[in-house]
């Protein structure tokens, strides 16, 4: 079995956007959740002899994530880059990604990180699957190819599930699935000698009102780094009393 796997990755912001701030390798990084999805895809492709396409959307200054994906093992990379994609919300992003994935057919697997480190919606993977009319297994932590059928192992809360999946299908990958391996220096050099493709709105055969701000039913009106409030409290009493009080407190807060 030889797969074509498409890994969707995002250049996630490291800092809250300020006026005039450009998204580049200083201010953004490959979304750590997508890194895990890509690493799992690379493993599957290596064991089955498949190939991987890394797909992302963003300005040209974000092409570093595509190169990084190629250094991690992706065979080719495509960046959806067009001013008219700017300010897309998760729906408009899914519309653009789905159009690009259609153009990349035939494909077998489309993988997404479970969520992003800079917006945490977890919507893009499922929405793209819907737009493509693909079956979706969320929280996948491993794949298995058994002679004639494809298995996806899923992890959610206390449950482990195994799905038999008809390909092509989409998957969001559980953060605990795999530890992305270190990148060998030679692979960075090789990745940077490859060419990546830049696709515009026209390449995707979409209308301008389907993407960007116009195609986005939701919009972010402000974004800032959250100040993490910490509260320190001392619990008095013997060890047993302290343990009891502690358990009571976290129960009251709904933590357990």
């Amino acid at each position: 079995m030889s797969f074509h796997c498409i890994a969707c990755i995002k250049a996630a912001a490291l800092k809250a956007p300020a006026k005039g701030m450009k998204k580049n390798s200083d201010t953004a990084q490959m979304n750590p959740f997508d890194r895990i999805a890509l690493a799992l895809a690379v493993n599957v492709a290596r064991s089955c002899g498949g190939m991987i396409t890394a797909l992302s959307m963003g300005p040209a200054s974000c092409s570093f994530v595509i190169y990084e994906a190629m250094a991690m093992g992706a065979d080719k990379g495509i960046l959806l880059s067009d001013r008219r994609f700017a300010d897309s919300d998760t729906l408009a992003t899914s519309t653009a990604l789905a159009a690009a994935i259609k153009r990349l057919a035939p494909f077998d697997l489309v993988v997404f990180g479970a969520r992003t480190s800079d917006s945490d919606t977890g919507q893009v993977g499922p929405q793209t699957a819907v737009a493509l009319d693909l079956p979706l297994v969320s929280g996948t932590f491993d794949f298995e190819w058994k002679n004639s059928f494809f298995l996806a192992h899923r992890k959610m809360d206390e449950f482990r599930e195994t799905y038999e999946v008809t390909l092509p299908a989409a998957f969001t990958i559980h953060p605990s699935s795999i530890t992305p391996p270190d990148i060998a220096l030679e692979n960075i050099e090789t990745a940077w000698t490859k060419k990546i493709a830049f696709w515009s709105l026209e390449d995707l055969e979409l209308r301008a009102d389907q993407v960007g701000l116009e195609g986005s039913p939701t919009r972010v009106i402000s974004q800032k780094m959250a100040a993490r409030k910490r509260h320190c409290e001392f619990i008095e009493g013997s060890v047993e009393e302290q343990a009891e009080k502690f358990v009571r407190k976290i129960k009251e807060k709904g933590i357990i």
Partner: protein
Amino acid sequence: MNTLLSEKHRAIRKAVRSFCDRELTPIAAAIDQEARFPWEAIEIMGKLGYFGIQAPTELGGAGLDSLSYVVAVEEVSRSSGAIGLTITVHNSVAVHPILSFGTEDQKNRWIPPLARGEKIGAFCLTEPNAGSDASAIEATAIRKNDCYITNANKVFVSNGGVADLCLIFARTDPGAGRKGISVIVAERGTRGYSVGEPEDLSGMRANPVCSIRLYDCRIPLENLLGKEGAGLQIALETLDTGRLGIAAQATGISQAALEASFRYARERQQFGTSIGSHQAVQGMLADMATMVDAARLLVYRAAILRDEGKPFSREAAMAKLYASEISTAVTDRAVQIHGGYGYSKAYAVERYYRDARVTRIYEGTSEIHRMVIAKGILEEYP
């Protein structure tokens, strides 16, 4: 961020930092104290290409340019100066001269295992009576039938305790003075090859710096690197590259000290406020940051010149001189900012301070570098 780095070079920095933060930083203090060479990390580094950074890919290397090399050495040294030393000695003064002066057969034989880190290289020039004056070496390699009968007492050999392959500078023609020195590659295991106990050094303690002694060691003629009598020329050319590595190493140690100082200055409270809000501490921090930046720019300039195939010898000397001098100044101030804690092994700056000191001594002392730089410039003003 530095504008001289392309996205590729930034990716290299990121990849090396990510590896070192996870694998080296957590063990750096322990391997220093135990004076232990961390084979477990070294093996991974070998697989990731750290032992053949600039060696061609067809010989098992990573095939990177000099700028990538200095970026990688700086990052490794930011985590552990001693492992930075291992990497830079191996790449700059073992792999590099074999690539530059070796025959095809020698390259095919030695480079692949070196580039993968399966074998470790060392450079043996210094002797008890020959340090800055390399032409004073006493080691001999006398041709007899199919081998060189080699006798040498080499000291302060970085990587010496773990080296499989040593570049030995020895006199093949004892009557020919400077022109009688050659480079012979000695392999561990050869009869008469022995390794001394590791030196009990102040810093760089995870690197097994040892003496290497050769007693009537029969080394095959095909282990001669370059031509007979070309030893000093090989040494000078190799040291240009070596300086670049040491300059990057010193910069990495300084960077680590700088980051630790900024963190500490924000955390440490005195007089009801963080010490970073005191002007005296700010002055130190600003000077440290400026010095580290200036050193890095000098290192990058020399590396970029080398990548462009232009002369870089003086620039490498300046980078080495400046980066090593400021690394003792920067780590000294880092200790000062940390106060009593900085003088304690509980804080990493104490190690940075010890590690930084030797960068002014090895791979050419600061004094020799000043001589070389000044002589070169004076010759331009006849």
